[in-house]
């Protein structure tokens, strides 16, 4: 069993090393090697899953750091939570790898791309399977590093590297918070190991628990692009689309949700921080949805929708229904991954064009992508029987049950907006008259890209069944609660099918509105736009958040350190004072040189002056007596 688990790690590692070191020679096969590595790792995961009743599996392979009192082992742990995540991660990444073989076909950084994609999956797996917070942090930063490299994959043009740095630094801001939380845990519990921590949380006071969980949440906000630190995700679209599909939809961004779920005991102990988590989640969901409404770039819309959906997951986890959050995470991985891959195939067909205003009526040219896109859109809008409906609805239901009415309401409104912008996207790109400029001639993507999309489409449809209400409870809920525990009993009495009807109505309403505005009366959006001028421009310019951050943080820091810290403090104050000491000795040397002017008289004058001064001193200090 230990070996099998280790193999899950070793396969991507070997993939990375082969492509990384022998990249130049294994160029044509790089895609195949990488995908084989991930698929075999997926199979290993399935093998582990097959014997899931022998979970939780916890094994320490070697002691990584053992300084005095601070010993951190390299240990892997599989329980129902990490198993679900493992299956989702390895599954989706194998599909993305296969898809990338086609997508990155003639890219000159071909082997480098696959090497780091493998390294990414490796770090993600470490993050999931780690049995202590520090090893999770290793995966945490490793994932950040790989996203930096993969976003900046086409390093020749200026934007991707900048976006990569932005992603890495914003993640680092989150990680700083995460580290502090981690340090609090260590100083209190004396160890970072999950079992050690979660077994004796009794010693933990609520206030300390709140502090710890809030700091850990800062890390989650950084990594999962929640409200204050989400700015890096839209820019991360500079990277190749499969990267966005894998990293910025399915795996990396969900790390924050996983972390919160993993430390569910701490979060459930401090009501304040779970309230914070839920409200940040709701705020981000709503906020990001507004930004997606008016955006014209295909991938950016999907990016904001990811931020918004992540908000949903945090609502689920925040209100205490951890299993619902993870369930939505899983379904989201399927349909959002699908949407991104579909967007990728559109981009691939239109060789890089992303502006929806120049698309339209593509369904005729790209039937598969269109259909698959629609399935994904339906899933995300929460139309039954697709997976999105189940997971989103459960989250909203749980939110309301656990007496968070405002959050429920925000969630519902966001669901409406989600449906609207998704179908706006579909109607703009695939339906209506074709505004495609003539030099583009879209064509359907090759099979190697379409098949993974279809598999994901199937998963998006079937994925929800796991959350279906069956005789003895919801299978997903029972499976996950072995580690996450059952959510607290409902506080507010609600009748479930009314809730279901409301959320379905929201979905259909959104679709209808989108159909009305973009197919029936194309002039309507323009009219609407200038009727609510300020709001529209707000959405359009993404509420100027980037500009505000630049203005508040980036520019002043750069200005202060350049003009003040470096030029003034370092050069003028400290360096100058050191040079002055040197100058001082030179100066005194110069002045006394003037004394030696060759005149005997001046020598004698100074000499006798000396005598006189000494005599004066003798007198001053009380004469000879």
């Amino acid at each position, binding site marked *: 069993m230990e070996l099998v688990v280790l193999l899950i790690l070793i396969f991507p590692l070997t993939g990375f090393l082969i492509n990384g070191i022998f990249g130049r020679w294994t160029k044509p096969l790089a895609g195949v090697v990488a995908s084989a590595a991930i698929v075999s790792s997926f199979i290993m995961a399935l093998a582990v899953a097959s014997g899931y009743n022998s979970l939780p599996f916890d094994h320490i392979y070697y002691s990584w*750091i053992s*300084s005095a*009192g601070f010993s951190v082992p390299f240990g892997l742990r599989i329980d129902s939570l990490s198993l679900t995540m493992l299956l989702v991660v390895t599954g989706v990444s194998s599909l993305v790898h296969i898809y990338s073989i086609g997508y990155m076909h003639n890219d000159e950084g071909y082997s480098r791309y696959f090497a780091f994609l493998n390294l990414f999956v490796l770090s993600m797996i470490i993050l999931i399977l780690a049995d202590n917070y520090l090893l999770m942090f290793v995966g945490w930063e490793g994932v950040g590093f790989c996203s930096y490299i993969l976003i900046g994959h086409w390093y020749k043009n200026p934007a*991707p*590297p900048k976006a990569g740095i932005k992603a890495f630094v914003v993640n680092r801001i989150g990680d700083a918070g995460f580290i*502090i939380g981690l340090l609090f845990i260590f100083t209190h519990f004396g160890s970072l190991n999950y079992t050690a921590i979660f077994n004796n949380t009794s010693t933990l006071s609520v206030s300390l628990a709140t502090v710890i969980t809030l700091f850990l949440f800062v890390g989650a906000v950084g990594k999962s692009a929640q409200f204050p630190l989400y700015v890096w995700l839209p820019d991360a679209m500079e990277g190749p689309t499969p990267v966005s599909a894998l990293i910025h939809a399915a795996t990396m961004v969900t790390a924050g949700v996983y972390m919160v779920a993993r430390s569910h005991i701490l979060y459930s102990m401090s009501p304040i921080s779970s309230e914070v988590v839920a409200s940040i989640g709701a705020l981000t969901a709503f906020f990001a949805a507004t930004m997606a409404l008016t955006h014209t770039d295909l991938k950016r819309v999907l990016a904001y929708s990811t931020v918004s959906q992540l908000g949903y997951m945090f609502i689920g986890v925040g209100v205490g229904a951890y299993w619902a959050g993870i369930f939505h995470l899983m379904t989201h991985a399927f349909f959002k991954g699908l949407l991104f891959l579909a967007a990728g195939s559109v981009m691939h067909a239109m060789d890089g064009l992303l502006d929806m205003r120049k698309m339209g009526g593509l369904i005729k040219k790209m039937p598969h992508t269109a259909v698959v896109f629609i399935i994904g859109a339906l899933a995300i809008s929460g139309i039954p029987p697709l997976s999105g409906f189940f997971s989103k609805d459960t989250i909203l239901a749980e939110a309301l049950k656990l007496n968070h009415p405002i959050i429920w309401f925000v969630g519902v409104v966001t669901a409406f907006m989600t449906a609207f912008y998704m179908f706006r996207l579909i109607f703009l790109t695939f339906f209506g008259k074709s505004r495609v400029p003539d030099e583009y001639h879209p064509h359907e993507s090759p099979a190697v890209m379409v098949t993974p999309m279809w598999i994901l489409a199937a998963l998006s449809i079937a994925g929800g069944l796991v959350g279906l209400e069956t005789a003895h409870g919801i299978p997903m809920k029972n499976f996950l609660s072995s580690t996450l525990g059952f959510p607290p009993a409902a506080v507010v009495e609600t009748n479930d099918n009314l809730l279901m009807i409301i959320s379905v109505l929201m979905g259909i309403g959104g679709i209808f509105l989108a159909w009305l505005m973009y197919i029936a009366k194309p002039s309507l959006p323009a009219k609407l736009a200038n009727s609510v001028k300020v709001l529209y421009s707000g959405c359009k310019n993404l509420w100027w958040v980037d500009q505000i951050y630049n203005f508040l943080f980036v520019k002043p*820091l750069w200005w202060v350190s350049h003009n003040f810290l470096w030029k003034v403090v370092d050069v003028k104050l*400290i360096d100058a004072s*050191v*040079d002055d000491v040197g100058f001082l000795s030179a100066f005194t040397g110069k002045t006394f040189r003037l004394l030696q002017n060759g005149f005997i008289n001046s020598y004698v004058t100074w000499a006798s002056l000396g005598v006189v001064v000494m005599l004066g001193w003798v007198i001053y200090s009380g004469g000879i007596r």
Partner: protein
Amino acid sequence: MSISNFPYLSLLLFFPLIGAILLAFIPKKDTLIIKLFTLVWIVIEFLISIPLYFYFNSGTYNMQFVENYSWIKSLNIHFFLGIDGISLFLVLLTTFLMIPAQWSTWEAIDKKVKEFNIALLLLETGMLGVFLALDGFLFYVFWEFELIPMYLLIGIWGGKFRVYATMKFFLYTFAGSVLMLAALMALYFIHGHFTGIYTFNLVELAKTPLPFKWQFWLFLAFFLAFAIKVPIWPFHTWLPWAHVEAPTAGSVLLAGVLLKMGTYGFLRFNLPMFPDMSRLFVPVIVIVGLIGVYYGAWVAMVQPDMKKLVAYSSVSHLGYSMLGMFALNRIGMEGSILQMINHGISTGALFLIVGVIYERMHTRLIGRYSGLAAIMPAYAVMAGIFVFSSIGLPGMNGFIGEILILVGVFKKNIWYGMLLAPAAIFSATYMLVMFRRVFFHKPKPELVELSKQGKLKDLSLREFSYFIPLVLLVFWIGLYPNAFLSKMHTSVNHLISQVHREAPAENISMLTGGKR
């Protein structure tokens, strides 16, 4: 130990000196033989130092491989060598870093090659002397001795403003060490006065803490001398100058080893001998350290010159090390020592990286470069590894040091820890911004046509080969640091117990108004 009676450390110490003397006999003009001879000599020196690691008994904290011959009888000064958990790795770091340092300058240095190599070997003896000497006087002798070759290295083979830089470096450090000499003498007499034993023996001096009043002045004097060397924040302005003007080998050794003498000095003098003061001064040093960390990072962010950027990053990294040290607990201390070694490796490697393109393009300005990744891919990968190792990416060496220090500082005082944690953000920014500006984006036309003329070739085999050991070390410490940490435990525990000793009661604590 089997080789206990064999004068092992003095062999290690004087072997480079013998090399330097032998080098003098090789005729000036056939430079290849000189370079080859020095390289082989340095490699042998490294091989000599390796058994130190294996025969080191990590069970006991007292000095090992001790050699103690009386040198100046009248003043009771001894030629006293020895190593313990703390100095073991610094010695190994020195002998290890000499190899890439010398090897990287095979093409770079063309004039006065013989003198250059002699200076390098003398420098090695000086550096080893500082880490091996356990007699205060001998420590001071080697402390001054290693300044001279460094002064020559920067002064003769340096850049445009080398004279100014080397003069500043020499006088600044010299002022500090003169202060140290005075303090050493004072220590010698005060210790003699209070305990009747007039000795320079560091182990002996650390046995009985002096009364409070004396501890204060001696601590301050030693603090200043070592603060200049570390360099701690206000005393750092000589470092960017010295690095910018130094040749690659000089920079590597200056950053890799010379700066560690300052921190090592704290571990040998300030902490064991003046325990009360070390505890009292913690807030001061923490504040200065924090300033150093943030100041170094922020100023590095705006540097146009790559070497200055890396120099300021050294100020930041060693600020970390100081904080770890003055957390005065075992984890922080081990983190600090490991951080010294990591800094030696990653910053030394970064200087080698800058040296590589400096050899080709003769400019260190970041503005002049862009898109090197396209022209020199292998070089870009190598630079990437060391950039991320110095940022502290987990899985590499920087991370281990930083985590241990963070835990140590956090255990000492939550607020210090919380102030220190966000520093990693800025250390990432300045490194990545530099990395992007130099390696990404389209290569400038002049770079493209330079590479067409074959001037901008990728890493040659020679260059590649001296980076490989560094890369291996980076990942070895990153993935299995216990090989290093296990050797430190007992010595660090002993040092920590020394720091937490109370000074004898009869000294009314001048500063704290007796509130002990």
